[in-house]
């Protein structure tokens, strides 16, 4: 089960797949094994993380100053 894992090699440690970085799977064969993670689940994680980061900013201040506003 699982989808095709074609990725583009960046360096010994990292690959890129569908525009998203991932650990080089060859480096997870000995001590820690990867789970099967569907492409949809991967995007679910990325979306949730972005939302969490937005929420964390909001906890500390009313707004984040944009760099353009400082010029």
């Amino acid at each position: 089960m699982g989808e095709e894992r074609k990725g583009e090699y960046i360096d010994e440690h990292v690959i890129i797949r569908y525009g998203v970085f991932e650990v080089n799977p060859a480096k997870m064969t000995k001590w820690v094994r990867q789970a099967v993670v569907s492409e949809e689940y991967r995007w679910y994680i990325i979306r949730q993380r972005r939302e969490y980061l937005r929420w964390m900013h909001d906890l500390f201040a009313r707004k984040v100053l944009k760099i353009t506003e400082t010029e």
Partner: protein
Amino acid sequence: MPTAHTYKPWYKTPWKDDWIPDEVAVIDCYTTFACRHKFCREVCPVYQVTGNESYTSYGFHTALLAVKRGYERLSNLGDTFTYCLQCGACQLRCPDTLFAGDFYRVPKTTNLLVTKTRSEIIRLGFKFKGSDDILKAINKVVEDFETGRMPLVDWAKDLDIPREGEVILFYDYFMATQMTNVLRLWAKILKTAGVKFGIIENPRPTLLYELDYLGEKGVKLVKENIDALQKAGAKTVVVADPHVYVSLTQDYPRFIGSDLPFDTVFITDFVWKLIKEGRLTPKKSVNKKVTYHDPCMLNKVSGIWESPRNILKSIPGLQFIDEDHVTQWYYCCGHGASEVGSFKIMHEDISYQIGLRRLRRVVELGVDTLVVACPHCNQQFNEVKLKAKIDIEIRDISEILAESLDIK
């Protein structure tokens, strides 16, 4: 078609009372212990009520590590593992998922760890608090289904819905017997939008996270539902019950070892698209002051939080006081993921406390109505509000939309 799911091979390997033979499972437990920062703690509704961190993802994984290291036995863990609603907050919040799940592909899967541990304890012949009653409840549902006398399509008697279609509105015994008004409203809303859809005659119980207790029979129920949907011609399966939605998108792939042969869409995603396309136009003013409760199975587990809010924002006259869906990772109605209400069977008091906390926040917002999108949240909040004497209306989102579309 691919759904958002994750799968670990050790779900299938059998455990022993004093030994977890699968090293991959143990590494999963160790890497949770290794964190020791317990992001899973504050976000856990059970921890919020009990203050006991044994009842967290960290607690559960570490307890199993203790079994592996020879300090504990599985049979001793049953009662501790009853303290989990399987709401999905911890496995999402864990940095191994939230910050690294896409990079390392070893997300936290606590809901399934709890399912696995409970079902292994039962399989090995042990019990835990409430296990007898849970098994009885699950077996009763399956038996009732098998009698063929469950009123699974009675709700649609007068609605003239075919038993086939490329779009199938799918549900199981729970909504068919306990939330028929919501099913009827969604069906009418779809008809109003001109959507051609069907239903199937005998939807099998989906029993999220608890099919594992049934062994081979559980697998059979999964396959039969998929077969029936395929036979009916389903290309898109629309689901109104978030628990059934998670069953199809996450549980079913792990049982059959592959993706499903159709797309699965949650009702609010489907209906919001219709509103955007102009096939549905909420016109009538609904003069209520509302807030929305994100169902755990939808928000935390499936990552669906936008379409219900978009629908509410499109209703004229509605005053919608929103609470951030990330803040709602910390909330829960208290019912838990189980269709038969296993958490309530095991911990009625904690379930009530969790729901009470949630309702108190609603009251603080000064609204008159709490909008829900899950039949279990619906029932749970109605029970809690009665017991706590809280004066608030509980309305399913279909009711608000139907009112604005002038559908009765």
